[in-house]
């Protein structure tokens, strides 16, 4: 299925999690069966690595996947913060269907040798999508486990040959009043902006996602292109990106501009740095198919549990000062 066809999937075609895992397991088994060999897969899309296979110890160690129970597809796509479509958790899935995903152009510029305006296809051309199973921790105190599909941001950024002046990368979300009803209310100073330090942007865990659960991203999850930075609070993982700019100075970011004492530029997940109005020590995990009435709160981990991979980025920085 082409990316374009996939953008208009009816709900009836959405695979539920159990089927998804089973199908992946089958594909994995088929791919490994000697009778079929590689030729058996010719013509078929290469299946992404699979959430059905348990993550290997190496993958877990690298932070690329986790074996924690996944959040169901329905919850991942039905419980969202995407203020361009309204501030209620159900607003984006109800209102975002109208967002046109094709054609989609991303303007890449700033401190780089090869700036340009590219179609989404050209931006990620030749890069094989990888599946990453990441924890996502929202600043509001809930978390999910999501099987993303995407390419490392570093692989995309390198193509534009950032110069020595590129100390930060700034990202911008589409802000189209006609397509996004939430823009009418200034809950954010539109357009939504985010930014990363260049070493954070180039980190192997930083993903430019185009899909989840083996399918293209639904609009409410930031289609057609979003950032996923698993060790930072969810609002850093900016959705529906239309511009990527290499800059020398720290760029202005949406939540930080709105309330600088509440939302820092770094916004690394940290149980010891509370939001001024609520605690960040624990989180409610939204995962699995059972009743979530008695979902246990779990302790929040420093860098959302990705400390082994990312702590070195912040060596010598006081995380309470640089929150």
């Amino acid at each position, binding site marked *: 299925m082409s990316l374009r066809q996939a953008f208009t999937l009816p709900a009836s075609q959405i695979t539920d999690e159990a089927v998804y895992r089973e199908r992946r397991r089958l594909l994995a088994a088929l791919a490994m069966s000697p009778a079929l060999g590689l030729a058996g897969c010719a013509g078929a899309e290469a299946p992404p690595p699979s959430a059905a296979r348990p993550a290997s110890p190496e993958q877990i160690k690298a932070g690329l996947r986790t074996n924690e129970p996944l*959040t169901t597809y329905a919850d991942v796509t039905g419980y969202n913060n995407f203020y361009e479509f309204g501030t209620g958790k159900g607003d984006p899935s109800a209102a975002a269907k109208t967002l046109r995903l094709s054609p989609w152009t991303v303007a890449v510029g700033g401190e780089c040798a090869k700036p340009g305006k590219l179609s989404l296809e050209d931006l990620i051309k030749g890069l094989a999508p990888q599946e990453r199973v990441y924890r996502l921790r929202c600043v509001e105190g809930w978390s999910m486990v999501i099987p993303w599909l995407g390419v490392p941001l570093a692989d995309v950024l390198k193509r534009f040959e950032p110069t020595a002046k590129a100390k930060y990368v700034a990202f911008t979300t589409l802000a189209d009043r006609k397509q996004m009803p939430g823009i009418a209310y200034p809950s954010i100073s539109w357009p939504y902006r985010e930014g990363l330090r260049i070493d954070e942007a180039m980190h192997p865990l930083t993903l430019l996602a185009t899909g989840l659960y083996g399918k293209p991203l639904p609009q409410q999850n930031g289609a057609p292109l979003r950032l996923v930075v698993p060790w930072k609070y969810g609002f850093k993982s900016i959705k529906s990106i239309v511009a990527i700019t290499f800059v020398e100075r720290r760029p202005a970011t949406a939540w930080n501009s709105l309330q600088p004492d509440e939302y820092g530029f770094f916004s690394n997940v940290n149980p010891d740095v509370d939001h*001024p*109005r609520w605690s960040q020590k624990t989180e*409610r995990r939204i995962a699995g198919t059972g009743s979530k009435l008695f979902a*246990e709160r779990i302790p929040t981990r420093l860098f959302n549990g990705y400390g082994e991979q990312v702590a070195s980025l912040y060596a010598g920085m006081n995380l309470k000062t640089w929150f």
Partner: protein
Amino acid sequence: MSDAAPAAAAAPAARRAASPRKTPPGVIAAKALAHLLALTPAAILGWQVWQEFSTGQGGLGADPVAEIEHRLGLWALRFLMIALAVTPLRQLSGQAVLLRFRRLLGLYAFFYASLHFAAYLVLDLRGYWTQVFEEIAKRPYITVGFLAWLGLVPLAITSTQGMMRRLGRLWGRLHQLVYAIAVLAVLHFWWLVKSDIREPALYAGILAALLGWRLWKRLSKRPKPL
């Protein structure tokens, strides 16, 4: 009720029998209806919680605990506002009968506020009991929410006829606490939203009108200095 009978040593039952003022059947019916309406949100939520518990599908969304807390809190706030609207409505309409519903409305505000607080303790903080003191002490929005609930407790306890008689003039003074409680409740809501303050602002506006009316009445009653 300010027009309560003077303190009588007689047993309540005997007093009621001797009382010339019987509650008219129309008021009894209206009160029954008020109870029915006031319990409807709790019944709907109770049904959804039961569905969620037994099938995992209660229509409460991906984070049912947050939904339960939020809905109960909203109803507590709404009943508080409706209870505070009784006096202005009575003054505007001249219908003294409205006063008979004030206690009922206030007690439902306490009922929903208590369920809201219980949901927070039992469902939300599950397994983190040690956190509760820290949360109440350190989080401004939880502090004011807790204080609002705490303020409702003595009002609920002293809501009986007997208590009214016993407290006499003190009763009115004590129940003026409700104004501070309402301010705290709105503040609690205001401080927990991230950036979209439209909903809390709506309640703040309603409260400002309700308290503003009382202030204006009080100021305009004063004799003007010559």
